[in-house]
């Protein structure tokens, strides 16, 4: 990525996150309070530092942004009012749009995609439909049998407690839902 592209990427990220990277003075409080920082390849303050230094591509490829659970602790405690949670969202969006998401975190990415696809089709998320798509697409990417089978044992218990709804709900006005998705995600009408 050349300098101009870097600059444009940073502007795009700042616009999406609604926050300035220059505001961060690297105090580390976000990393200190993040429940997942011990499992991240790059911790929250490190990701912001990378963008400050112009290493945007490396930040977009980090697995950390998909390990984030969006708990908003970082944003709440930041002394400089940097919206760190929004920065993570921005990194995720740009990473996804450019197709450079971390391979190790494929499961997380595909889950979100399956979720949105289900909403796009039905207006509401249909759990079984979503899980089926997630498991199939995930297996294609990860190729581990454990992935396919994991969680399957929950199904009978859920059925016992009448929590398993095989057929999901559809809203009446599905057209507007599809148009909203098209406008937001595809940039088309």
């Amino acid at each position, binding site marked *: 990525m050349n300098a101009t592209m870097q600059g444009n990427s940073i502007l795009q990220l700042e616009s999406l996150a609604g926050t300035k990277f220059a505001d961060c003075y690297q105090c580390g409080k976000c990393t200190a309070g993040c429940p997942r920082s011990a499992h991240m390849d790059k911790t929250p303050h490190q990701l912001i530092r990378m963008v400050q230094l112009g290493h945007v591509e490396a930040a977009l490829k980090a697995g950390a942004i998909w390990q984030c659970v*969006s708990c908003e602790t970082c944003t709440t405690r930041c002394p400089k009012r940097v919206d760190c949670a929004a920065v993570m969202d921005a990194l995720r969006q740009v990473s996804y749009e450019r197709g450079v998401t971390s391979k190790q975190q494929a499961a997380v990415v595909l889950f*979100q995609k399956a979720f949105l696809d289900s909403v796009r089709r039905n207006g509401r998320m249909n759990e079984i439909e979503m899980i089926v798509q997630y498991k199939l697409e995930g297996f294609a990417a990860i190729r581990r049998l454990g992935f396919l089978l994991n969680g399957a044992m929950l199904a009978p218990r859920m059925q016992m*407690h009448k929590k398993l709804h095989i057929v999901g709900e559809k809203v009446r006005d599905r057209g507007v839902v599809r148009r909203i998705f098209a406008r*937001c995600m595809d940039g088309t009408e």
Partner: protein
Amino acid sequence: MSQRVNLGYYPGCSLHGSSDDYQQSLTACFGALGASFKELDDWICCGATAAHMLNRKLSIALPARNLALAAQQGCDELVAPCSMCSMQLKKAQRAMAMDAALAEEIGIIVEAKPGGTRVLNLLQAFDRVGMETIKAAVKEPLKDLKVACYYGCLLTRPPEVVEFDDCEQPESMEKIVAALGATPVKWNYKTECCGAGMTLANEEAVLELSRMILADAAAHEAQCIAVACPMCHVNLDMKQSAVEARYKTRYDMTIYYLCDLVGLALGLTPKALGIDRHFVGRKA
């Protein structure tokens, strides 16, 4: 009982799906408190975690569409019992309030004008009904019940969005639990994340985070944990046996929705409240 409270109701996908025990409990409990819930007609998914992770505009548009429906349907107050839904609705509202250009753009995208409906999470819904009403309606105080009040992430923060209770040391749930005659315990994990919607996508994270919550509640002698969010309930209740298996320990911790506890104190039966549909059997 004071005058009837009429509230709009936004269930969200979970409460019509695998967490419809929450809806069952909610309806029974608030019905007994004299509040009626009118479900928003033809509501759509709020976008939950997936939308804000992958597309910012979508994460505002989907909730905005629901806010527009609420305005069209004459709904002044909308209860969203799932804290992810209530957070997304509130965030979208705030983003549009602070950026007129964005509000206009979203209005075009969702083909309607999002309104200023007041969005309430479960705690705010109880607050709306009123502490006096709740206290007066208690028939069977939950004496000797030690409850760990679990807020999770999105009920109190970020503080500028939620504008309710203190985000570091909240007490609103404890007040309700105490009014029911139970004893809220002092513990360390009341606002720590459980892993939220990552149950399927990142099970490791959920197991680790949920374990710390269960362990701390147990260490502080809680007999049960009260939650106000379907994802928290799934992670702490449905996945409790997975946590136990992974970390080779037992918790046997009953996980109540807050409205379960209120309902029980009001004299409703566990079956009516859907408590028998929880995975971890009721121990306390």
